[in-house]
């Protein structure tokens, strides 16, 4: 075990896989210089410029070329630098990557990983802060990964690179310099298995990505008041660990979904709707969401704070849930 930052954990995951699988290559802006976040530091020296490809600012082609290479058997790691720029490559992602296998009756194997650092981070404002992971849960054909710890980022990234399905990997910008232990070699973590952060009977709290440390802090605060919650980090929102969530809610009778993205039509709605469907209303005392208002992300710190989660907000939401 070694203690590293989340971004370094992700670096080691790709490094490990590139060492054993010559089909893996990285493409994106500035990746030969180590990438915007240092997540490809020293890759060029080790793998050369054919496998570590700094590209023009051509997002559509970064995405589409990644796919094209997969169609001849490569396994690209497509680096999007910042999630919001994926909007320049949506045809390639939505109409091509997500659909080729199906449309072609199984002939195509779009084994791509698309890395998309997302979320609010240091007041980057509306065009550099979006969290739209829910969109891709709604999009057939893709896997949606939303890690929150160095170990999960590493293990899920290894799994992603080995996956034959296209994987949309939402790197959590706000947690890049959070540290944690990872094993070496890095073992893959299967998709769709939630991580239980804390255990308790009072309520079920479901979360992922940058909301995880906030909810964890809240669970600790609640515990000091004797309120113990089942806190589940989904880690991947498609597939997601329905069994774990449903089992927990059956036990606690209360569900709170906490996410950093906008509440309206966010993935929290799916969790609530599915739980209501599967658990029924008789044994369900309340199911609620705590998430961002339907507002673009503003720049100024006091405004951004209006949209951000905080342990206090989570604590209050849990207490409100318990009162229901």
């Amino acid at each position: 075990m070694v203690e590293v930052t989340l971004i370094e954990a992700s670096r080691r995951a790709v490094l490990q896989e590139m060492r054993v699988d010559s089909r893996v290559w990285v493409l994106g802006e500035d990746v030969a210089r180590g990438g915007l976040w240092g997540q490809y530091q020293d890759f060029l020296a080790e793998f050369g410029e054919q496998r570590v490809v700094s590209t023009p600012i051509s997002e559509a082609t970064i995405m589409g070329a990644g796919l094209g290479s997969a169609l001849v058997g490569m396994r690209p790691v497509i680096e999007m630098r910042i999630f919001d720029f994926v909007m320049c490559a949506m045809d390639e992602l939505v109409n091509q990557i997500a659909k080729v296998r199906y449309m072609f009756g199984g002939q195509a194997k779009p084994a791509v990983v698309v890395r998309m650092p997302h979320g609010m981070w240091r007041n980057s404002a509306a065009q550099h802060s979006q969290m739209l992971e829910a969109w891709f849960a709604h999009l057939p054909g893709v896997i949606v990964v939303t890690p929150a710890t160095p170990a999960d980022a590493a293990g899920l990234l290894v799994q992603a690179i080995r996956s034959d399905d296209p994987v949309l990997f939402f790197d959590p910008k706000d947690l890049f310099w959070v540290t944690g232990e990872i094993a070496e070699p890095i073992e893959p973590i299967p998709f769709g298995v939630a991580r239980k952060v804390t255990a308790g009977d009072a309520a079920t709290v479901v979360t992922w990505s940058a909301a995880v440390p906030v909810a964890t802090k809240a669970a600790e605060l609640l515990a000091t008041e004797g309120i113990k919650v089942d806190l589940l980090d989904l880690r991947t929102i498609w597939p997601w660990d329905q069994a774990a969530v449903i089992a927990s809610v059956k036990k606690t009778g209360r569900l709170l979904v906490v996410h950093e993205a906008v509440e309206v039509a966010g993935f929290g709605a799916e969790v609530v709707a599915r739980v209501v469907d599967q658990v029924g209303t008789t044994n369900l005392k309340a199911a609620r969401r705590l998430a961002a208002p339907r507002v673009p992300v503003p720049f100024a710190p006091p405004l951004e704070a209006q949209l951000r989660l905080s342990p206090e907000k989570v604590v209050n939401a849990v207490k409100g849930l318990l009162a229901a």
Partner: protein
Amino acid sequence: MSDAGDNLRRLTGLYRMMARIRAFEETALAAHKAGEIPGPLHVSIGQEAVAAGICGNLRIDDRLTSNHRGHGHAIAKGADPRRMMLELFGRAGGYCRGKGGSMHIADFSVGMLGANGVVAGGIPIAVGAAQGLKMQQSDAIVTCMFGDGAVNRGPFLEGLNWAVLYKLPVLFVCEDNGVAAFTRADTVTAGPGVIDRAKALGVAAISIDGNNALAVDDAAQVAVTAVRRGEGPHLLHVRTYRITGHTSTDAAAWRPAEEVEEARARDPIARLGAVLAERGVEPSELGRMIDDARAEMAAARGEANAAAWPEPAVAFEDVQDTGAVAWSKSH
């Protein structure tokens, strides 16, 4: 003139391929009009020399990306018209098990990486495939077919720039039939045209008469050789004409009748037929090739009409491995 021009067998092969493409398109068009084929259908009648002339110069392990008007490209690349027809009809035995239809035909076994329902959608995919092949130190190349309407979409610029940067083995083919849907492409394309655009991006490019199968064949042979030799991407601008409408239901009545008549007079199949006749091929032999092609496609149509539909469960297959929902069970 190249070997191709001199090789009667090669020319006869070209003729047969064009006749087969024409027969496929006419058969599909008739079947669509008869209500046998669902979905939209774009045929390439009049453009057969492009597909045949280009793809005749490709190896089976060369790759191809195509567009919405791609039946000819697929047949010329070696796809089986029977399985294509089954796909058009939405049957289980089609290339995509009935899940793709006309606009999404692919046959990876012959390097045909797929038609595309999005204009210019194949361009980034083609350059990426070429990059993959280059990493694998293969000498296979990628041919990327698109229409004159595609040169105004962003991926055209991005893809050509990209191919030059990494010196990729891509042959870009701009199949210029003069129209994009219901609009004359030149009315929405500024500047001197695709050749200048390509050159401004560093891509070697020439224009050829796409209704002259020999010219296409010759130019393709030169370009394919250069691309395969590692000289980087090339572009062929192939001028042709779309005889029928945009889709099977479009009469394209806005075009002057004389324009279409004049184009018919330049029919690529008749033109190559005249060359062959000059070189001593009997008219009856030419006629036989056309009859054979028609019979082949009529049989394919008959088979398709009789073929089984895909089982309902097929709708739920090949979505993804992990996280695919066994819907009927879980919902």
